[in-house]
């Protein structure tokens, strides 16, 4: 896990550099694994810090109780040890980094930028972190217009068909 | 300066296991259950007859023309506006043109309206019933003691709310009883539901909000007791006062300005 954390800046930089669509998917899966690892590691640290703080206060209250019975001067409750504070803050930042890395990629807001992204990247531009295409991805909203049939002159086609049938009849009749 | 001594109350750690965690878990489970109950109880949209659909759609047509007039050219907008205004004012799209000018019927007597209100009632019930049940459950079992301390000070006014059932005059209002933990849960568990039920949960809420803002937000527009004739007349007036401009006005200048030589 430590290696993973150490290697994280390299992967992050590499995934930002990857602009080719075929590299996008691989880097996306790497990103989701990375963010999950970071978050899990940070949660472990945070849980440890929480447990330590809990034990510390429990110990403190026992000591205060015994001190109160032994001597009249009660020791003031000291604050948390520095190492627990540092561990909490560092783990918070680690989880924060993991969560931010785990968010889904944003989509451009302006219509022309968005349409350009659709045309240039297609489905690869609208994947979530796991590399699957988003459920609400619909592609070009005007693709129906692009692929709809042109006007068909049905009368002309019928006439041509009738001529062809007549010709066939004529040939068979001969 | 006299330091106010910090009140400390020794509490049994078992309070957490037998009060705090049960309440939280029950709240989370109720939220999940409510989500699925609303999904199950959602009634399919009712079929409407042709006349009623035409009435609603033609009104929406007018609203959409008004909202998107800038993509139409001037002559085509004028043609649409004139046709719509004459149709609206003559009442050509009304469901029953005979009842123009009469007051709308009492919504209670209309069976269709009753059904729509039943749907709203069902949603309300799904919210209200679990909440009252849990609240009375907490009041019955867990009232009368203090379980924890808020990390921020409050004024004395909160005392009656936070320490319901604990009749102690000198206690700091930061100490809170189980019922106030319940209130905190109501407000603060939304991220948990987002996380558990997926973003679809938030999506549905957001989609509802979007719908209400957009022109398709139908419940109050076509609700019972609204006179469609009045709506049509108001819409005709809105259409008539539009000052038309097209997005293509001055497009040549914009294009030339956008080209960098």
């Amino acid at each position, binding site marked *: 896990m430590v290696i993973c954390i150490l290697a994280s800046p390299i992967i992050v930089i590499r995934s930002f550099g990857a602009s080719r669509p075929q590299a996008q998917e691989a880097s996306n899966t790497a990103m989701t694994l990375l963010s999950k690892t970071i978050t899990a590691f940070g949660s472990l640290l945070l849980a440890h*810090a929480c447990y330590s703080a809990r034990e510390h206060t429990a110990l403190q209250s026992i000591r205060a109780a015994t001190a109160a019975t032994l001597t009249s001067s009660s020791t003031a409750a000291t604050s948390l040890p520095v190492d627990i504070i540092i561990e909490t803050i560092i783990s918070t930042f680690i989880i924060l980094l993991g969560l931010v890395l785990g*968010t889904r990629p*944003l989509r451009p807001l302006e219509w022309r930028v968005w349409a350009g992204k659709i045309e240039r990247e297609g489905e690869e531009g609208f994947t979530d972190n796991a590399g699957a295409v988003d459920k609400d991805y619909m592609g070009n909203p005007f693709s129906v217009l692009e692929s709809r049939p042109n006007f068909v002159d049905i009368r002309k086609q019928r006439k041509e068909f009738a001529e062809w049938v007549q010709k066939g009849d004529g040939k068979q009749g001969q | 300066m006299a330091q106010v001594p910090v009140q400390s109350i020794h509490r049994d750690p078992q309070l957490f296991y037998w009060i*705090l965690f049960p309440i939280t878990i029950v709240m989370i489970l109720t939220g999940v259950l409510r989500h699925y109950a609303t999904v199950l109880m959602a009634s399919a949209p009712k079929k409407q007859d042709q006349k009623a659909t035409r009435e609603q759609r033609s009104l929406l047509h007018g609203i959409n023309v008004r909202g998107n007039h800038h993509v139409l050219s001037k002559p085509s907008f004028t043609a649409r506006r004139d046709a719509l205004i004459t149709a609206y004012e003559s009442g050509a799209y009304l469901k029953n043109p005979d009842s123009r000018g009469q007051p709308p019927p009492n919504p209670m007597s209309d069976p269709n309206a009753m059904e729509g209100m039943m749907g709203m009632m069902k949603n309300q019930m799904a919210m209200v019933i679990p909440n009252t049940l849990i609240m009375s459950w907490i009041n019955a079992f867990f009232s009368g003691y203090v379980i*924890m301390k808020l*990390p921020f000070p409050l004024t004395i006014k909160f005392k009656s709310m936070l320490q319901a059932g604990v009749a102690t005059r000198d206690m700091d209002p930061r100490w809170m009883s189980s019922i106030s933990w319940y209130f905190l849960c109501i407000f603060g568990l939304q991220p948990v539901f987002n996380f558990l039920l997926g973003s679809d949960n938030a*999506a549905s809420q*957001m989609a509802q909000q979007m719908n209400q803002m957009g022109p398709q937000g139908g419940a109050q527009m076509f609700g019972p007791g609204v006179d469609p004739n009045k709506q049509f007349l108001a819409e005709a007036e809105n259409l008539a006062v539009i000052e038309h401009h097209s*997005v293509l006005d001055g497009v040549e200048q914009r294009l030339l300005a956008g080209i960098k030589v």
Partner: protein
Amino acid sequence: MPSEQELQISPIVQESLVHNSRTLYNLQSLTASLFGVSAGILGLESYSGFVFYVALSLVTAVLFYALRVAPTSLASGKPPLDTSRYFRGAYDFWAGGLMNGFAGFVLTWTLFYGLVTA
């Protein structure tokens, strides 16, 4: 915030707007709960806790900008700290998290404060 005329000339995609704000909202509510946990563990009280929350929300916004918005936004020629490629209104982006996650923050803060300093 662009005017109505500009909005008609260069329209925005509603689905993208919903998608982006939902992504940001989910992140904000999750991180607010996380900040509550750490504030509770640290045993912060009253003002220091709220200051902690505000500061970390700003850090979240900056981090989100740096990792998610900046790479493409800067490449498309926007000035730094400009979020108009993905969000309408800078205020929602930078300070919206304060409102969105506040209830979750108070909940977890209270819970962990109670658990740790029992």
